[in-house]
């Protein structure tokens, strides 16, 4: 399969064999990731098997979380078909079907790519035609890669011919990353920490996984290799200009704010033209805002400055406390999403939002703090510091308090046997689970 991979337009890199050059000249310069994240020291490649989900699968995070992952069937039918665990039957969950290692072969007759720019436009149009909301190309860099021979793909190990290659060898041979992703629904997200917000998150995630798998298949059909489970998606997202990294540890996109998924990107040797990191003012905004830190139910988001972790300077969240809330709340929701929802960048994708982002990104950097204060004041005034929006969808209603049961669907004359007495819905307020008093029992709040 090596020969068809050759193409006239591929960036010349002399050798095609993976020699790895252990005593090669100098390390490549650290990648530029925009203003929010700086690589300041040597970066150890992340071992995916030491990340939260695999740790929990092995039971290293305690019994409660282990049971949550393995032995908990959700009471909510929609969660049982859309969330990555808590299902009753794995076969009902589309991601188990779609997110297996791709078994298709690379097409032996490769499409010749004369103009990488045209191919880049094509791949982006392809991803959009399949329903991707955001698509961008990142230049691959060894620092982004996961530790070699330790691939991890949800629902099965990545099995490909390059599993033993070191990160340097991989990026030499496969210089580009295709980042394609979906955004989730703004209105449903307002009922975050609720099944409605879960639906917004999980359904768009399934769609994103499907699109990436289809795109992976298409790259192979074009006659080029497409590898999965090799790269840190956030690094690829930063390098390709999908967004900037916020205080909440999420990528913040120009159009959608923090409500985009960061699924596993595709590493490929298809000749493409990479995009560049963007500056939409997240750096200046996060320095001042702290809205996500105030709203986080577990105080997992820092109020302080950035710190250096594994050679990367960024805002670091406390993933363990974020994780440990989950067993207490799984009856009410699966994905918290509070930090994504309250982020002032997370708004419907409409003209006034584009105007604000345009103003911020064209404003000279020294003048930005003043503009940020203004925009944040507007956000606090109209969207609230802590929001309680009531959302109704498919008979779900976030105006019903957690633990109570009621049918608030207009015109429903079903008897609803088995349901408790109708709960009272007061005003137009949405409720989150857990309520603050419950959270305070196990979260230590500073000062």
């Amino acid at each position, binding site marked *: 399969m090596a020969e068809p991979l050759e193409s006239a337009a591929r960036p010349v890199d002399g050798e095609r064999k993976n020699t790895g050059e252990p005593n090669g000249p100098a390390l490549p310069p650290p990648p530029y990731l925009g203003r929010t994240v700086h690589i300041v020291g040597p970066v150890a490649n992340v071992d995916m098997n030491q990340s939260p989900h695999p740790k929990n699968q092995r039971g290293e995070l305690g019994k409660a979380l282990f049971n949550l992952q393995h032995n908990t069937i959700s009471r909510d*039918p929609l969660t049982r078909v859309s969330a990555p665990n808590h299902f009753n039957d794995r076969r009902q969950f589309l991601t188990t079907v779609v997110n297996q290692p791709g078994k298709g*072969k690379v097409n032996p007759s490769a499409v010749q790519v004369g103009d990488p720019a045209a*191919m880049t436009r094509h791949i982006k149009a392809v991803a959009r035609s399949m329903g991707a909301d955001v698509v961008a190309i990142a230049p691959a860099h060894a620092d982004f890669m996961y530790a070699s021979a330790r691939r991890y793909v949800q629902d099965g190990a990545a099995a490909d011919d390059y599993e033993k290659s070191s990160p340097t060898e991989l990026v030499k041979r496969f210089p580009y990353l295709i980042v394609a992703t979906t955004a989730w629904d703004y209105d449903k997200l307002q009922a975050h920490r609720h099944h409605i917000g879960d639906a917004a998150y999980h359904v768009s995630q399934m769609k994103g996984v499907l699109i990436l798998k289809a795109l992976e298949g298409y790259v192979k059909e074009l006659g080029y290799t497409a590898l999965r489970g090799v790269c840190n998606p956030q690094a690829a997202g930063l390098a390709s200009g999908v967004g900037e990294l916020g205080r909440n540890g999420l990528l913040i996109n120009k159009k959608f704010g923090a409500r985009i998924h960061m699924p596993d990107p595709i590493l490929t040797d298809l000749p493409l033209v990479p995009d560049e990191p963007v500056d939409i003012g997240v750096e200046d905004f996060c320095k001042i805002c702290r809205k996500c830190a105030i709203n986080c139910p577990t105080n997992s988001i820092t109020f302080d400055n950035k710190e250096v972790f594994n050679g990367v300077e960024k805002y670091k969240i406390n993933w363990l406390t974020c994780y440990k809330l989950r067993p207490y709340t799984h009856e009410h929701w699966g994905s918290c999403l509070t930090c994504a929802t309250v982020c002032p960048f997370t708004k419907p994708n409409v003209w006034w939002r584009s105007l604000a982002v345009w103003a911020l990104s064209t404003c000279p950097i020294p003048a930005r703090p003043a503009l940020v204060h203004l925009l944040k004041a507007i956000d606090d005034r109209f969207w609230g510091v802590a929001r309680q929006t009531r959302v109704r969808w498919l008979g779900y209603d976030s105006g019903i308090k957690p633990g109570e049961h009621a049918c608030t*669907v207009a015109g429903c004359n079903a008897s609803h046997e088995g349901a408790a007495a109708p709960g009272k819905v007061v005003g137009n307020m949405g409720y989150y689970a857990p309520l603050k008093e419950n959270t305070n029992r196990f979260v230590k709040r500073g000062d």
Partner: protein
Amino acid sequence: MALRLGLLKIPWPKERSAKDPYWDYFIHTPPADRANSVVEMIRNAPEGNVFPNKADLHSPEITSSHVKEMARYVGADLVGIARLEGDSDAYPFAVVCAVRANYDPRAALGIGGQVPVQNGLFVTFVLSAWIRELGFRATAAPHGAAESLAAAAGLGKLNGEGRLETPQFGSCVHVADIIRTDLPLAADG
């Protein structure tokens, strides 16, 4: 193609392939290895079990509206419910979903030409799994008379060639797999 603004139709540049030299390959070249097609993956996946406890349902009209809302949320452009007569598995209802198709998937066999099928399978897989999780039987499968069922479900009318004509997209639609179910619904049309 044309952009439709109520009664007005504005001609819209359709031919992407004029600017994109690879577009035709995307739409029309069938995959060399069918395992590269997501459509195949989903079609070959086994069906899950019906959840043992039936969910507490609303009245049939409201359940129907919820099923339709869910279908639209997962990506169906058109959705309707038809009553089935004499179904071999005694299913009383068919949920018919249709998605917009710029290319007819029966003629355009490339990965791009099959994108409507892919979108339709996403809808029918999630929707039928959801109905099974509600505790009712549901099967999504290709159906011989899909287009006439779509007409029966009020999605549009059949034209002279037996193809579905919809008011929204004309004949540029792909009728997805038919979901047959015994969930208590109210039929359209």
